[in-house]
């Protein structure tokens, strides 16, 4: 049976760190023109169902309300934003930039199976396709990471359309394609070959999909696919697109922070173009994930291109907490004001003076020895 735990009550530095991280991220989003949006936590399941994949539905919490409606606690913010845009905001001039700091409720798979409530900090750029929008979103992610003082991180960049094209070309039924996708995510080229050779898939496609599952990454993955499948025009277009994004970011000085990794294709099923994840030294999980989803809004209304991302606040705080804790210990001595019981007014005057100057202050009560 699943051991369900709810959000751990966070105390003191952890709480303030969550606020700081949220404030930093929202400040960056605001600086790029992303306006904050509030999305309800509770949704009617039938209204959101079309935007959730099987996995998201399986991990969601659903229940029947007093009116007999099947309700769901929002398991992902992006589909809810897409629905809100289609139903309420579609009249606004495009592109529309929205950001959020919202809670999601879902059972995380695997070791974090206990994690039910978590917070996402994210942004969505709605109504614009193409390289400029994709690069803009990646630059916003990079700025957030820089503002948080992180150095040893990088973004893995993949393309869902390219991966889907390759998987479809195998001619495998959906169930088998899912197995191959699992093998790619597990970076298990042996398993990829085992499945596809059994199906009789053509060798250049098997080799190209095995390249996706490989650990190499980098531009050589693109070179390899171009060489193996020179007549697959749609595929070559996507390869060129990834090259263009990579080159643009490299010329902006982020060459070492962005890495092509065609195997990073996990995530919700609504991604249709680029997909990316952020990893950092010291974090056992990814810090953020994002991608292009040009057909998601169309499930609720008029098809509108969009791209976005979300950071996991818990993972960021877990990563940053030890650093801040060390810094906090160093600072604390300067923040202390001793207030003696015999002259509390004098002590508190100093405290208030520091607070009027917005200086961090800790009060230490000192009792007098009674003679």
């Amino acid at each position, binding site marked *: 049976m699943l051991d369900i735990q709810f959000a751990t009550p966070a105390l003191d530095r952890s709480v303030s760190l969550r606020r700081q991280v949220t404030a930093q991220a929202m400040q960056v989003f605001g600086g790029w023109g992303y306006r904050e949006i509030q999305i309800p936590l509770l949704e009617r399941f039938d209204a959101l169902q079309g935007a959730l994949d099987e996995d998201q539905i399986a991990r969601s919490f659903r229940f029947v309300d007093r009116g007999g409606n099947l309700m769901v606690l929002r398991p992902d913010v992006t589909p809810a934003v897409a629905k809100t845009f289609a139903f309420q905001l579609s009249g606004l001039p495009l592109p529309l930039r929205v950001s959020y700091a919202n809670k999601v409720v879902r059972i995380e*798979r*695997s*070791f974090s*199976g206990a994690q039910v409530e978590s917070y996402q900090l994210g942004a969505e750029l709605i109504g614009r396709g193409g390289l400029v929008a994709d690069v803009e979103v990646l630059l916003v992610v990079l700025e957030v990471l820089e503002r948080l003082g992180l150095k*040893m991180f*990088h973004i*893995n960049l993949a393309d869902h359309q390219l991966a889907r094209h390759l998987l479809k070309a195998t001619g495998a039924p959906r169930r088998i394609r899912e197995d191959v996708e699992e093998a790619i*995510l*597990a*970076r*298990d*080229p*042996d*398993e990829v070959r085992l499945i596809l050779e059994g199906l009789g898939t053509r060798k250049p496609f098997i080799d190209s999909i095995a390249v996706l599952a*490989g*650990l*190499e*990454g980098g531009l050589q993955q693109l070179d390899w696919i171009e060489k193996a499948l020179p007549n697959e025009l749609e595929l070559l277009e996507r390869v060129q697109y990834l090259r263009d994004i990579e080159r643009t970011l490299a010329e902006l000085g982020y060459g070492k922070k962005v890495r092509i*990794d065609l195997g990073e294709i996990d995530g919700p099923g609504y991604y249709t173009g680029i997909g990316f994840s952020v*990893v*950092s*030294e010291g*974090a*056992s*999980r*990814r810090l953020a994930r994002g991608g292009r989803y040009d057909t998601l809004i169309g499930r609720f209304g008029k098809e509108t291109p969009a791209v976005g991302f979300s950071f996991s606040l818990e993972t960021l705080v877990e990563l940053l907490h030890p650093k801040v804790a060390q810094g906090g210990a160093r600072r604390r001595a300067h923040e202390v004001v001793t207030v003696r019981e015999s002259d509390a007014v004098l002590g508190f005057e100093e405290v208030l003076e520091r607070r009027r100057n917005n200086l961090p202050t800790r009060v230490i009560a000192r009792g007098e020895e009674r003679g």
Partner: protein
Amino acid sequence: MTQRQSLRLALPMSAELDAIVEQLRACGFALPDLDMPGLHHVGDPLGCGFDFEVFPLAPADVGTYVEHAISHLGVMSTDLLNETGVEVWRPYTFAFGRYPLILAAPKGETFASLSSRPLARIATPYPALAREVFSHRGMNVEVVNVSDTYTACLLGLADAFVDRLEDPAPMHEHDFRAIDVLGYSQLKLVVNRALGSRRRIAIQALVKCLQSQPVAAPPVIDIPFDDEDEQLPGPFLEWDEDSGGEIAG
């Protein structure tokens, strides 16, 4: 002075441990016998800029340690990976440690005979796999989670078992037969996804070294099926020797 980074590798204390250690030694890892818990520092045998630390662990725990990034790397069999559901990379498959996963029962039992019981009980250390197999066939069974599946069947706790077949001898000894092969378990090098992404060169170096120093695979395991099944006629027909024709069974 720059502090050298380390890569921790968890090895399973299983029947394959000696073969894994032998392959790592061939890759230059100066490893002692890993019969006691503890970290063994083996320096940088691959010249990849990372110092390796190797430690033994209970086989089922390896994935958890790797997923939590307490260990960057590990070696784990796919049966346990699938059962525990850990999300890790699996970039290398060892030549040894490949076992069939079978559904077995006392000789004479079949899927049909099991499904004719009011509620068949299946002993297994792999409850998730067992549930999946039987739910796919639309069979309602009670899955009993035990590690010693033979005893469970011999003492009447279960009617059949789902387990990996490492040695067919006990099956012959206790007169058990395989009803179906459900798949194969393989031994994989496993890697934490997020940290592996930042240490690709070192991990690739390890994979390449393991590929270049393979330990020979043991002979294929002969799965003891119930041969008599092949001799039996269909369930509804039998041959009438006297009249020389088929009669309804």
